[in-house]
């Protein structure tokens, strides 16, 4: 019987990481930013129905970059987790922190135990009554979790977009301003014009009653972008 080849754990992890990074780099970027009324989520997405940004719970939103089928199943798992928790306890007991931890655990396990790691990077954001309390968690393909402040970017050219935003992002921007900044950031890094129809934009607006998540449709985008 032939012995299985020996591959060192370092080598295996490195290969998996490279594989996952390559998959994620193919996609377009998603920007999440705090603004004066809450949290702003922005994606370049030519499909109107295959969403990258989604509502998870009253104050919590999700964004996924990389392989659609993979982050879509993570998104659904997140909604299930949140709804079960809210039903068992109360709506206030559903938190982004617990959800982000669950994602981190599950991505970490997949990364170390499965042959093929997930080619995804995801964001979980929760809006609070004051901006200081807002939470944005970025979780990468290997389960590493980062607590972000102000703004963050996932997907294809994430680093380049972050560099662009670093010099220009300010606290308490208006919706109009964050939209403009996000469009400029993506256009500059990909070196081409973005069509408004190809944008997927949503906000977690703390001024809303009940569910804070709201999609910003094309008519409103046009009005904001004038």
């Amino acid at each position: 019987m032939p012995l299985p080849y020996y591959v060192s754990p370092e080598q295996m992890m490195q290969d998996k990481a490279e594989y996952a990074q390559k998959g994620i780099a193919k996609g377009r970027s998603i920007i999440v930013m705090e603004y004066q009324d809450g949290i702003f989520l922005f994606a370049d997405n030519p499909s109107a129905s295959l969403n990258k940004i989604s509502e998870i719970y009253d104050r919590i939103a999700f964004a996924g970059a990389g392989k659609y089928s993979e982050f879509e199943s993570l998104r659904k798992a997140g909604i299930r987790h949140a709804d079960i928790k809210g039903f068992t306890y109360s709506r206030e007991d559903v938190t982004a922190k617990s959800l982000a931890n669950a994602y981190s655990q599950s991505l970490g396990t997949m990364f170390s135990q499965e042959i093929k790691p997930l080619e995804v990077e995801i964001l979980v954001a929760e809006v609070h009554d004051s901006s200081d309390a807002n939470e944005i968690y970025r979780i990468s393909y290997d389960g590493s979790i980062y607590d972000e402040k102000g703004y963050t970017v996932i997907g294809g050219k994430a680093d380049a977009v972050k560099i662009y935003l670093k010099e220009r992002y300010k606290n308490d921007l208006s919706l109009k301003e964050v939209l403009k900044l996000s469009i400029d950031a993506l256009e500059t890094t990909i070196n081409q014009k973005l069509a408004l129809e190809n944008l997927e934009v949503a906000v977690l607006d703390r001024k809303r009653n009940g569910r804070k998540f709201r999609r910003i449709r094309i008519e409103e985008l046009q009005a904001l972008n004038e």
Partner: protein
Amino acid sequence: MNSWSSSFYDMLVAEHPNLLTQFKLESGIRSVEERGKLTNVPHGTTVLALKYKDGVIIAGDRMATEGYQVSARRIEKVYRCDDYSAIAISGAAGVCIEMARLLQVELEHYEKIEGVQLTTEGKANKLSQMVKGNLPLAMQGLVVIPIFAGYDVNKGEGRIYKYDITGGKYEETEYHSTGSGGKDARTTLKKLYSPDLSEDKAVMIALEALYDAAEEDIGTGGPDMVRGIFPIVKVINKSGITDIEQAQIEASYRQLINSRRKAIAKEK
């Protein structure tokens, strides 16, 4: 669980049955005493729904009873499910309230997973499955009889569904009322209802029907002027679901009681 399912209820049944009210008695109810214990829990009483020209009105009194005792004066029996629908419940209060809560989560869950809302018919059918799931409890005396009312965005009209304990779903074209005072409320609705009512008129009819039910049925609570407790009335139309202010309901009741008082004085 079938990961293709978008239903919260199905997921609970399959994966978290402990979160659902299901009492499995070893050999069922054995005696009248045992049945008495199980049925001597708070019961919600009269709820109703009626259509008006722009949509539908759904309302319910505020009393819960345990046998001949009042167990709660401020209970709510009409719940908003989503922007375009509401459920009103009568029967064993604990099971009823849980079912209303479950339906709220169910509709929101579906909307988030699928990215679109269920159709009114779809929501009504889902509720039918939930009522059917309660049949074992209903056989032991814990009955849930809801009314589901919604504004059908596709059809542009209000819709009303009633149910029986087996989950049987029946659409009503004008109005319906259920619970211990349901029959009394229906009599009033039958006399006063006409198609294409205005919102104000329809709300007034709903309040009057609940008032008559409270007069005839000991389980139904009337307007409580002392404590300021009045029925819950919700209006559902194309701009969504809204609550009628308690102050407005109080004013309507004062008017109603005055006119009845005058009518009786005239008879004398």
